[in-house]
């Protein structure tokens, strides 16, 4: 057991990078807790290093040589005297062994118990656990453990097609295959196992019925070590591409008070089934008829936690820290009120005009949207270099409005204000989405972006810009021609001016 002294920790090591590391440092600072950043060689100039009280190098840029090196992280914890670790999301956040090792070393892990991480980490085991607690799951294989191809082929028809093969150790769509009929299943099983094996070192898979037209809706829960568990309402996360969430909102247009209460209670029950402590998220699929099914539990802070903060007023990271310090929850379920509507757009360094290809480079200019109802969580700034080593998400743009309509209008305004020069971003994707009638009407499911959305959908609205684009390109081309001519003329006197041409060209590359 951790001692009382450890629970009153004074210095938190943030075992992460980017916007979430900055977010955690902010919460610690506001609570008067010291912060220790860790960084890879690619991140010396990163914002979390600039903002933390202390900062230590972990190793080279690749994650496995830096942010995944738990041994190095524990070394830094010892050297700096950090008495707690916040893992953020990704990296080591859902590694049972990491949480257990913290406990062994007498360091407070700001998150759930290792046993809860383990119980929810194996997707098959998690299903079995919540079924026992009376939580509805997507119909599928209910046995825990290694099932052979023969078992799975035998069970499949009783689940019904289409169905999904999923990796038990899974996440992020890896080791997942959609199966339309029995004939193709054998081949797909093999490839799913291969991918799962290479991604997670575990080729074990299970089957789930494919719910068509489903929405991805999740509930934020908070649990303290005194057995109090509450939920903070839902987040709608159906806007996805290749199983990556792109936009989240709270509340969901699809959920009424009655369904919210019902699903919220089930979410609380799911957390209780694994003796959950700290912040966590229960993900559900909800079908067209409002039947809902437990999908999985994320035993950590979510990327999209801010939309819940905006509508409830609860600072989830501050609450995580309080819980880890052994305090009671600051709220009872009755005190949680959903006020207004919030939307988050994930701003990724990728080119929506070129197959969402990741984009790297130095951010030379950046203008953040600000003003009423706008929040930006980011780890980048002008002058910062986006490297290919980490997740392409560089910022989260979050808005609040009194209604969903007002939030959409505000998001449009904020997206238009947001300027980033130096890397391509998916801002134009979000702008197109905000103009889409289906999105405005709330008519979407998890397949919407891939199957029924196109960047060209709303383009006719903006044909007037064609002429403006032509004029701008002409003016810039003309200016450059003039400038080059001047430089050539000046150059006849002074060779050294070529470096200025070079600068101009670099700027415009």
């Amino acid at each position, binding site marked *: 057991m951790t001692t009382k002294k450890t629970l009153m920790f004074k210095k938190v090591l943030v075992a992460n990078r980017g916007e979430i590391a900055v977010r955690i440092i902010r919460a610690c600072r506001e609570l008067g807790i010291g912060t220790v950043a860790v960084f890879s060689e690619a991140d010396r100039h990163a914002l979390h290093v600039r903002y933390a009280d202390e900062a230590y190098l972990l190793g080279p840029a690749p994650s496995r040589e830096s942010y995944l090196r738990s041994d190095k992280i524990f070394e830094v914890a010892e050297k700096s005297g950090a008495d707690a670790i916040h893992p953020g999301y990704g990296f080591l956040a859902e590694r049972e062994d990491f949480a257990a090792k913290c406990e062994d070393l007498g360091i407070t892990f700001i998150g759930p118990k290792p046993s809860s991480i383990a119980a929810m980490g194996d997707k098959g085991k998690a299903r079995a656990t919540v079924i026992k607690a009376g939580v509805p799951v997507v119909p599928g294989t209910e046995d825990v453990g290694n099932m052979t191809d023969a078992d799975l082929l035998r069970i499949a028809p009783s689940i019904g097609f289409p169905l999904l093969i999923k990796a038990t150790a899974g996440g992020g769509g890896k080791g997942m295959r959609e199966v339309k009929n029995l004939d193709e299943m054998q081949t797909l099983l093999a490839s799913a196992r291969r991918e799962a094996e290479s991604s997670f070192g575990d080729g074990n898979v299970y089957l789930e019925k494919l719910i068509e037209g489903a929405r991805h809706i999740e509930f934020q829960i908070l649990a303290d070590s005194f057995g109090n568990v509450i939920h903070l309402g839902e987040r709608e996360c159906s806007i996805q591409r290749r199983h990556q969430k792109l936009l989240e909102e709270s509340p969901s247009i699809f959920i009424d008070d009655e369904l919210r209460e019902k699903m919220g209670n089930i979410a609380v029950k799911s957390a209780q089934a694994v003796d959950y402590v700290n912040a966590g998220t229960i993900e559900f699929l909800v079908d067209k008829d409002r039947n809902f099914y437990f999908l999985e539990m994320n035993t950590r802070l979510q990327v999209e936690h801010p939309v819940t903060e905006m509508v409830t007023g609860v600072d989830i990271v501050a609450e995580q820290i309080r819980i880890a310090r052994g305090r009671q929850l600051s709220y009872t379920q009755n005190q949680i009120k959903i006020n207004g509507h919030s939307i988050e757009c994930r701003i990724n*360094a*990728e080119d929506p*005009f070129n*197959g969402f*290809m*990741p*984009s*790297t480079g130095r951010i*030379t*200019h950046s203008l953040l949207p600000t003003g009423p109802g706008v929040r930006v969580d980011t780890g980048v700034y002008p002058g910062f270099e986006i490297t*290919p*080593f*980490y*997740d*392409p998400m560089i910022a989260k743009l979050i808005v609040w409005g009194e209604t969903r309509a007002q939030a959409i209008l505000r998001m449009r305004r904020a*997206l*238009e204000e947001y*300027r980033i*020069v130096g890397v391509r971003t998916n*801002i*134009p994707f979000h*702008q*197109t989405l905000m103009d889409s009638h289906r999105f405005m009407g709330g008519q979407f499911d998890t397949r919407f972006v891939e199957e029924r959305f196109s960047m060209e959908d709303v*383009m006719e609205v*903006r044909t007037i*810009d*064609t*002429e*403006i*684009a*032509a*004029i*701008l*390109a*002409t*003016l*810039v*081309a*003309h200016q450059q*021609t003039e400038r080059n001519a001047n430089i050539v003329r000046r150059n006849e006197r002074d060779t050294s001016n070529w470096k200025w041409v070079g600068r101009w060209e670099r*700027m*415009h*590359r």
Partner: protein
Amino acid sequence: MKYITTIGGKGFEIEIVDEEHILIGTQLYEVDFKSVSGQPVFSLILNGKSHEAFVYQGEEDWEVLIRGRQYQVKVEDEREKRLKTAGGGDITDGEFHLKAPMPGLVVVVMIEEGQEVKKGQVMLILESMKMQNELKSPRDGIMGRVRVKAGESVEQRQTLLSVQ
């Protein structure tokens, strides 16, 4: 100076009259055109309407990103254009070299040398930023030299393969 500017097949005749005026066809416009804080971001006030765009040179044409839409714009000065047309017909596109848009790991190469490819066909998958990215052929053609193989790490702008 007079320019012929083309976007998606549509042509505009734009004449730069002086620092503050342009002619489009026979229509005179008042322009107030400034670069914003030394960046390739341009503010244009055209007859009172305020526009802002990110304008930069792409592989071949100018790229203009304005209010969430990207345009490929070809700007030719009138003389240049006339000479080219007089020269007779299109210049053939020549060989296309696919360069790595970012450092990464080649996951799979999906084509072979000498094979026919269609525009938009996936030729190679490159892993970077924890994502698998499909690199497609920009046009129909025949595969030339393939310079990388699966499992290989590549640098940014390294030539991966050629389409003839």
